[in-house]
């Protein structure tokens, strides 16, 4: 559906995007994850023909983003960070003129607008001025606009930024629903870890304009961080003898606590607890810590993705 080779964008002396090779197969749902300024949006803007690459090439929906812009534009949908609908317009009018822009006749543009208004729950607000809609309503209208021509490939740039949790969940549902029904290929950028984690089958971690990891969320976490089992004991001596009992897991002891790093921790816990009880040294507390994508990012870059995250937050996360 899309492939790029050495895609690069320089702004004066800043390498916003620095040689991205990316292949997206039809039907995939891919999240580009990275901190603000990582180059996610710039990548998306090149893929959607908004800005030309400094070097490298990209074929999107089968066409070159520089030499065949119109062909690309006909086949993709794009939902940018801003509001696609003009503030002085009515939602329905914007949907119809969007349909006309893609070459739909007046009648089919109208029918398509009505269908989208219905399926995105915009019936009550579609004939009001866009400026009077709430943030969540505007975002749903933007999604409707991006879908007017039923594109096979949809780009969303930070779709849920600025929405409250309820609207965010609602939006994610719409996107997943769209995919389930039309097998649309979806490429979205986000800096919300949970969003990438819960929605995408494939997460591409971008930092300083480069791809630093590309896999399923589960695989990224397993490969780069892994699960941890934290066992608590009443006394240091108990912890020390327990460490010897589970030596095959290579535990780390810190005072009265043992940390075991292993894959598939939830399945290991009963076995470990049984062993300890049999040896007469049962754990008094147990906690399974599953890694987040933030842990992955931290592992890969030494920085946290969370707001204001720096190398200092490492200790907090690595407890």
């Amino acid at each position, binding site marked *: 559906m899309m492939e790029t080779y050495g895609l690069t964008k320089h702004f004066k002396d800043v390498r916003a995007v620095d040689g991205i090779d990316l292949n997206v197969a039809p039907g995939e749902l891919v999240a580009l994850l990275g901190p603000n300024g990582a180059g996610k949006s710039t990548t998306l803007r090149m893929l959607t023909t908004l800005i030309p690459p400094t070097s490298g090439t990209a074929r999107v929906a089968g066409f070159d983003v520089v030499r065949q812009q119109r062909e690309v534009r006909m086949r993709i949908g794009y939902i940018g960070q801003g509001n696609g609908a003009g503030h002085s317009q009515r939602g329905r009018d914007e949907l119809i003129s969007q349909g006309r*822009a893609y*070459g739909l006749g007046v009648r089919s543009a109208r029918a398509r607008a009505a269908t989208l208004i219905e399926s995105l729950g915009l019936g009550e607000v579609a004939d009001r001025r866009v400026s009077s809609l709430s943030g969540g309503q505007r975002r749903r209208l933007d999604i409707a606009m991006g879908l007017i021509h039923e594109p096979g490939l949809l780009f969303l740039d930070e779709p849920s930024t600025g929405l409250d949790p309820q609207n965010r969940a609602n939006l994610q549902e719409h996107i997943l629903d769209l995919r389930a029904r039309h097998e649309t290929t979806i490429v979205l950028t986000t800096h919300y870890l949970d969003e990438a984690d819960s929605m995408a089958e494939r997460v591409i971690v971008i930092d300083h304009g480069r791809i630093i990891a590309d896999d399923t969320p589960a695989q990224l976490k397993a490969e780069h961080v892994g699960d941890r089992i934290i066992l608590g004991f009443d006394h240091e001596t108990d912890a020390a003898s327990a460490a010897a009992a589970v030596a095959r897991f290579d535990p780390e002891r810190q005072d009265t606590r043992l940390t075991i790093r292993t894959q598939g921790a939830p399945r290991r816990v009963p076995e470990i607890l049984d062993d300890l009880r049999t040896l007469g040294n049962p754990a008094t507390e147990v906690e399974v810590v599953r890694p987040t994508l933030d842990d992955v990012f931290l592992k890969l870059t030494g920085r946290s993705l969370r707001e204001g995250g720096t190398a200092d937050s490492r200790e907090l996360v690595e407890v």
Partner: protein
Amino acid sequence: MTTLVADTRTVFSRELRPVLRDPFTIIFSMVQPLVFLALFTPLLPDDSLQWFVPGIIVMSCLFASSMTGSNLLFEIQTGSHERMLVTPLRRPALLIGRALKEIVPMFAQAALIVAVCAPFGFRFNLVGALLGLVILAAFCIGLGALSYTLALASKNQEWLFWTVQQTLIFPLLLLAGVLLPIDNGPGWLQALARGNPLSYVVDAERALFAGDILSSATFGGLVAGAATAAVELWAGVRAMRNSD
């Protein structure tokens, strides 16, 4: 597949739609030149309505068309311009459709001013007036295109748009002899006025409303209007092609 004409029509009707939906927004701005007429004409000699009204029609178009880029600037800031850039709409259509829209409020404005002034003794030649509106339409398209070009150039600095617009509009207006005749001014002022395309448009409107159709003023106005439209559309389309 669409054509350039169809794309232009899409952009044109999109621009016009909010005006048709909420006509009051434009009616309010159309009252402005009437206030101007009401407060300024009493200061003029008795028989100057014939001379003054065509100039005021041009002035109101100058104000409206030169400000129209601010709508685009706003849409650049909110994101709807970007959304349109990703559609297959041809870049020239994005500019031409917007610029053509200027004709509609221009016609409405001219009709309103003429209708209000007629009871006070303003007389005009219908054929001449219609030809005058054609010239004015060309000029408004050009000025609108210039305003959009300015908006595209100011996309990261809104102040630039308003500074340039405000700086240009009054010299253009005063040097076109809209409020007072240029003929009695010093030579340098007259020379500057001759370089102002708006002067030719104003002269043509006065001649045409008075029924002096086959005059050199008409010819000058036609050339000035057409040249303004051609040059500014060309510049605007170029700016739109390079915008992101």
